[in-house]
């Protein structure tokens, strides 16, 4: 990540792509930070949910390399609080989808030890596979 941002057609295209997939208008984000402040996972994230919104608005493709998009568990705590009625979880999902559609998975079921696999309930496995792999 660098200190310098250049805004050009490429960044615009990326912003539009994510917005189309998510249905969210990131320019509406006030950067108030309500989402980040209440996110139960924020301590585990490398960038905050509000930062995620910012990066998408500015079309910064490096957002795709952030952990945050794989950590957001669509708990919707932020969704019900955003003063602009934006949904960060939809942005995170759109970003995951961009990766997954490139066949870059975050979870490979084969990596999980047999005993772990055995004790996990279906509901956890299906959800994880749906969200973290393609």
């Amino acid at each position, binding site marked *: 990540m660098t200190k310098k941002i250049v805004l050009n057609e490429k960044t615009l295209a990326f912003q539009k792509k994510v917005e*189309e*997939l998510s249905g969210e208008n990131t320019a509406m984000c006030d950067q108030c930070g309500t989402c980040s402040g209440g996110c139960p996972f924020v301590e585990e994230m490398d960038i905050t949910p509000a930062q995620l919104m910012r990066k998408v608005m500015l079309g910064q493709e490096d957002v795709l390399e952030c952990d945050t998009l794989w950590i957001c568990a669509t708990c919707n705590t932020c969704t019900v609080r955003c003063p602009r009625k934006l949904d960060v979880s939809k942005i995170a999902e759109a970003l995951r989808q961009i990766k997954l559609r490139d066949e870059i998975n975050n979870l490979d079921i084969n990596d999980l030890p047999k005993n772990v696999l055995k004790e996990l309930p279906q509901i956890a496995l299906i959800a994880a596979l749906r969200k973290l792999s393609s």
Partner: protein
Amino acid sequence: MKIPYFPGCSLKTYASSFEKSAIASGAELGIEFVEIPRWNCCGVVSSLTSDDLMHHLAPVRNMIRVLEMQNDKIVDTDNKMLTLCSMCMNTLKRSNLKMQEHADELETINDFMYKEDQKYDGSVQVMHYLEILKEYGFAKIAEKVKVSLKGLKVAPYYGCMLIRPKEVGIDDAEEPTIFEDFLKALGAEPVDWRSKKTCCGSYLTVNKENIVVKLTGKILEDARRNGADLIITSCPLCAFNLDSRQELLQIRNPNFEPIPVLYFSQLLAIALGLDINKFGFENNKVDGMPLLKNKILNK
């Protein structure tokens, strides 16, 4: 009342005691669960991207089954569809909402399923068992209580999917009360605690076990600190994270004091005086029996 019932992936296996206690308590109240024939998994989580219509097919197919049951008069509830698991409810409701709001997408989905005789029209109303109980009347349930849970301090755990996002939640997203009202009807004392709406970590339990253990550790500690005897939930995944993960917590922290996590329907069944052997506690990792015996059953 005969209501179409959608079990979902975990209720037959991991969360069988949830299903059994719910069905048994329903029967006692005159609510007959009629399992939807040929139901299929809802997909657990909803697809949120605008172009991904395919994943809404599974939920909608289940709703077609409900319409068929109605046509065949196997059930007598107007358009209702009962779920037990919060995640199923959430996913089904979100797909349903999409169908209700976007006629074009509904048409595409119907076209996909050209082999179905019954077309979907958005008319099904997905409901959680708690909502059905509320409709039935908590006051009426209170009258039917045979074993009062008086003296039992219960921390109701809403988690996420039951109340968020607002358009599918069954209660206020910030100040829900349905669990509290339910508990009061059974004579139990609901505990007010800040973690009742805090995410348990959900499916990250598969690949980010540490995050989940940290989170659930905090949640459980909060319940304890507020004097809860036990926690209730409405979701097999929350149950797994809060209940089964206590094993790891114990390993990491020898001072950790386990706390039982039950499905709300198990408490309901006990309060209605049903035979424990009939609905079972086979899935609960932290044994709640000693506590229940001590506080309720042997009184």
